[in-house]
């Protein structure tokens, strides 16, 4: 039995310990904001926060999360999160939107650890998050904007 919290709510799981957290979230908890893009850690669509750090939920086994607190796109509440979401809206970042939960989780992770990132730091931190619609220019701009909003 693995116990953990998702967005502050307690969960317990008793199935395959090698099932990725991604599928627990999507199929068992029916929280589908976290997306399946590649299943192999190459796209970042499945990014969630594990004890505050962005991780790829497709590469995180259920056995790895005992006692952890998970935050998903549905549970974003922090100041950095609100700033990121507002900046995304202002700058019309989304296109198809399928990668954007992961982009936002990764961006929040960046701004929490580095509230005023250089452009090169943004590029490096976000490089693992693919967007097939190529919204990168706006993501980069929105992170800069979110950084400003956080200061206000």
């Amino acid at each position, binding site marked *: 039995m693995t116990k953990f919290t998702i967005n502050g709510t307690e969960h317990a799981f008793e*199935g*395959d310990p090698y*099932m*990725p957290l991604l*599928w627990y979230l*999507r*199929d*068992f908890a*029916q*929280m*589908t*904001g*976290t*997306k*399946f*893009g*590649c*299943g*192999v850690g*190459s*796209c970042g*669509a499945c990014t969630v926060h594990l004890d505050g750090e962005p991780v790829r939920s497709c590469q995180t086994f259920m056995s790895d999360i005992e006692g952890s607190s998970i935050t*998903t*796109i*549905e549970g*974003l509440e922090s100041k950095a999160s609100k700033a990121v*979401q507002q900046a*995304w*809206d*202002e700058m*019309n*970042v*989304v*296109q*198809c*939107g*399928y*990668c*954007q*939960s992961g982009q*936002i989780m990764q961006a929040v992770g960046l701004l929490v650890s580095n509230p005023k990132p250089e452009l090169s730091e*943004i*590029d*490096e931190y*976000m*490089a*693992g*998050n*693919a*967007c*097939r*619609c*190529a*919204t*990168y*220019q*706006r*993501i*980069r701009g929105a992170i800069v904007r979110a950084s400003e909003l956080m200061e206000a």
Partner: protein
Amino acid sequence: MTLTTSRRNFLIGAGASATALVIGLKASGALAATPEAAAAAETSFTPFVRISAEGKITAVIKHFEMGQGTTTGLTSLIAEELNADLQDVDVAFAPSNNDLYKNLAMGMQGTGGSTAMANSYQQYRRAGAAAREMLIAAAAEKWNVSAADLTLSDGVISGAGKSAPIADFVTAAAEMPVPAEPKLKDPSDFRIIGKTGIRRRDTSGKINGTAQFGMDLHLPGQIIVAVLHAPRTGAKVASFDASGAEEVAGFIEAKAKQDNSGVFVYATDTWSAFQAREALSVEWNFDAAESRGTDDIRAEMMTMVNSDPEFTVKADLSQQEAADALASADQVIEAEFWFPNLAHAAMEPLNCTISPREDGGIILHDGCQFPALVHPTIAGVLNLDPSKVEIRTLLAGGSFGRRANAESDYNVEAALAYALTDRTKPVKMVWSREDDVRGGYYRPAFAHKVRVGLDASGTIVAWDHRIAGQSIAKGTMFENFMVHEGVDHTSVEGIPDTPYAIPGLHVGLTDSKPLSKVLWWRSVGNTHTAYVMETMLDMVAKAAGQDPVDYRLKLLAGGTADQNRLAGVLREVADKSGWSNKAPEGHARGVAVHKSFGSYVAEIVEVSGTVEDGVKIEKVTCAVDCGIVINPDVVIAQMEGGIGYGIGHVMRNAITFDGGEVVQSNFYDYEPLRMPDIAAIDVHIVASTDEPTGVGEPGVPPSGPALANAIAGLGKRVTHLPMVENGVTFL
């Protein structure tokens, strides 16, 4: 009957409030209005806007949303004519009904060819304007004042000393005569169309996790099906053993596909389905399977472009005259080109759900791009009367063309999987990324060979262009209208019809048999034809000792509308990128311009570094003329996206086959463009009063050749794609 696609923003149908006024078009093209009940009964009526008794406005969207901004664009037209805030207008996807929601450009309900705005601009505005006039007429009658004294803004009708919300007049408005030609707003009064700073209509669900894509649907009692696909086209299941799968907790059963092209693996959840699929052991029969590889067809196609073509596409000069003109030219510039197969690889792996209806029919839940085609196809597969099939449109996590194909392949596969169940539970088919990358329907591979003869002044005297490629239309239901005299127009588009004044043009085409299905891929034939035309022109300009922008402008000086508009974007991009100033030390720039889908796009790419140690893409400047712009920011976003999509694939992507099998499988070997790849993109819109034209695709074609022309400035001319296979490295 559409369904809730984002729990907060996109709602319509039964759960919402009763609709009192529905306005749309009759089959004749005349405007009509009707109360909801009548609308449901009337089959030749196309609703575009609905207004509830409470005054809530809903735009009914006939095109699906794959990220291209359709929901924002079409809703803007309704909001504009009703003077409403865009964010206050609800969005609903239209049900599948070919008669009602024909794409005027395609003759059937579907989205593609960058046509959404072009074919809807007048329809939606007229519907919105009619609603406005009828509401005002109802208010004028009630207040006993002149309609001319009243205005409607932000849901309130006011004037003649009175003011009231539209809710007070909706029911009466439905009884008003429908204006045959409602007065459209004067562009000087626009508050949404053409304005900057308008926020997209689909953002909130996409940034808080509530937007519902096909992949996100979770119906009670659903079964997940994964498909073990044949490793090569034509391979068949000889036998399979599912005993390993029995170990997987959620595994239900495995069944061979009806045509033995794979095995369906049913499970209670996605992870179990994938695990069980992994545990199957299958004996394949390869007797009728494809066994060629990319090397084989590449050699074959290179031979084809060095031989007499199968079809003559255009012959200003005969083949012999072209040969003679080349023989007597002062210089001949020649090059061979290779374009590999490419996968669309949209971010959302393909999937869809089929659920049973109580009357024995089914509902297909899908980010469906061609409902008009999918509808009868699915009905046929399941042996159902089309009236028993309903399609509910969900958001699509990208498409780039993949979701629309003549066979409706993934929808049919889901229907086949459903057919093998007892048809009492919803069946959700989920493809993995590997299925998606290896699943065929690729951008066809193409080879070109071009020889251009120049006279002593550097003027073109002959242009002999041979193409070998894989037709996307032949052998499909689209063949009749896409293939003429043997030539699939999409194999050559942009060459015989080039707006450049190129004398002595001879274009020939030879068809090559693809290794698996091929399909349109964002901007279709222009993906390779623009690359060839625009890199050849650069080589020609260089041989002529002339500036590449000036050389192109001379070929566009004939004064036709196409030439003027192409020249317009070319001048704009040159101006905005500082083309006339020398590039900084260690930098190089490349230019390309192309017309596709009625729009004109020019791009200049600036690079730095070296081919050996790494090229950095510093900046892409773009100028676009796509007629009247409804939402400038959506246009800019589509250019940015098209540039990224085009450049990413030209840099490093290829789908290759080895012994009939696809070599690539996931993003680690079909590596997407990443954020650090392009440092900046700067898009400029050239103002126009022409009808709106497409923006989803036209950003792609110039991006590859502009990059190639820039890298040529660093000393390496790449004509065989992708670039990374030519010793070009990127930073």
